[in-house]
């Protein structure tokens, strides 16, 4: 199918994009890589009256280290993140997770921030941001604010974004001394959204596991060290607490089983590569 008609603003500066969004209010939407939004337009699941294309805004194309985090502008495509030279050394969790996002042909256009705004419960980037306890920088024509990842994802495809507001950038905290990371995912085919994905962070402060694909938003929990003998029970509690979804890909029972198994694997991997 084809999209319903809309007005189109190809913004050249951030001010133009914010002006257009402010004017459009509820009826305006940002267009970034289009890899989630254009399918929705084509299927007419979304019918905005104004689309603001932000990919021509040079100020949003930055990818830089600031305050112990990698700050990634809203115009940075997923493939550009994979080409950041220090990714494996300084953000190993993202290096592991990004290859699972769709395919080469979608990562070439899809943006990092677009995936966060889209907020699919099975998406890898929201999961990684929750696991690393990162932040999202939001902006309207008049104001800006920074929101912690856990306060940004409100439900299935629902976020703290307000009308007229856009994501300007996201900050993923860089690896700190003594930290190790693990990532595991099961999908029906390579490149599909996860049925369940687990991201583990092991460090001096303990072990944290984030789980995506099970509840409406990715969820983070502190878990005991496997050496303590309590991990299986804690993972089981975590799996049951997530109110697993039933859909055509998997039953809730299968999802809980994946949380237990992938969760343990991810944690063990994180402990192995702790430095």
């Amino acid at each position, binding site marked *: *199918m*084809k*999209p*319903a*008609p*809309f*007005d*189109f*603003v*190809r*913004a*050249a500066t951030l001010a*133009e994009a914010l002006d*257009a969004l402010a004017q459009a209010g509820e009826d305006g939407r940002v*267009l970034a890589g*289009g*890899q989630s939004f*254009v*399918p929705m*337009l*084509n*299927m007419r699941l979304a019918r905005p*009256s*104004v*689309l603001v*294309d932000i*990919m021509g805004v040079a100020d949003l194309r930055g990818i830089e280290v600031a305050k112990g985090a990698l700050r990634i502008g809203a115009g940075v495509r997923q*493939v550009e993140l994979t080409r950041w030279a220090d990714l494996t050394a300084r953000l190993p969790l993202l290096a592991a997770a990004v*290859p699972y996002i*769709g*395919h*080469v*042909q*979608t990562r*070439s*256009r899809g943006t990092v921030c677009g995936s966060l705004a889209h907020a699919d419960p099975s998406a890898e980037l929201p999961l990684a941001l929750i696991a690393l306890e990162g932040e999202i920088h939001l902006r309207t024509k008049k104001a800006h604010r920074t929101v912690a990842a856990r306060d940004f994802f409100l439900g299935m495809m629902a976020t703290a974004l307000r009308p007229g507001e856009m994501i300007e950038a996201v900050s993923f905290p860089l690896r700190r001394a003594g930290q190790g990371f693990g990532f595991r995912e099961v999908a029906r*085919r*390579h*490149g599909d959204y996860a049925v369940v994905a687990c991201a583990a962070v092991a460090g001096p402060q303990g072990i944290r596991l984030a789980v995506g694909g099970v509840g409406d938003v990715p969820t983070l929990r502190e878990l005991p060290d496997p050496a303590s003998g309590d991990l299986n029970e804690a993972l089981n509690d975590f799996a049951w607490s997530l109110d697993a979804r039933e859909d055509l890909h998997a039953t809730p029972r299968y999802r809980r089983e994946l949380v237990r198994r992938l969760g343990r694997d991810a944690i063990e991997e994180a402990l192995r590569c702790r430095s």
Partner: protein
Amino acid sequence: MPKLTKSERYPVRFTLNGRPVEAWAEPRTLLTDVLRHGLGSTGTHVGCEHGVCGACTVEIDGEPARACLVLAGQVDGQAVRTVEGLEPEAGRLSVLQDAFRRHHGLQCGFCTPGILMTLDCLFRARPDADEAEIRDHLSGHLCRCTGYAPIMRAALDARDRFNQARREETHA
């Protein structure tokens, strides 16, 4: 920046296989439709129109992309390559296309233009891509006919021939 109004048509200018082109499009017109209906380049196929099948894959500014998920206005000023741009001269198949023919890498041919564009982008960027990398790139394409094995054979053969030709060039 002027706002383009819905249901009105605007000129879009980009290069198609190295040649400057202009087409008229509404804000909502997809790149696939501009290529096929506006410019008559029907080599780019349309299967699902939501990014899943890969039939519409073209190269935009050097990267493989789904043309069905790109608005025509987004490629204004950019460089687009399609399957029509692969043959080195009229009537002669490229090494990659020839490998597909010899290995029966296509049956109905619906998926083929997209797969060729993905592999062409891959081999230009990474001439000695290994089998795992080729498979990873092909995972973005659905083929309902071949079962993929002949496609893999064609891809590996084309890669080896490219590299042989390159080696001969450097030794000559």
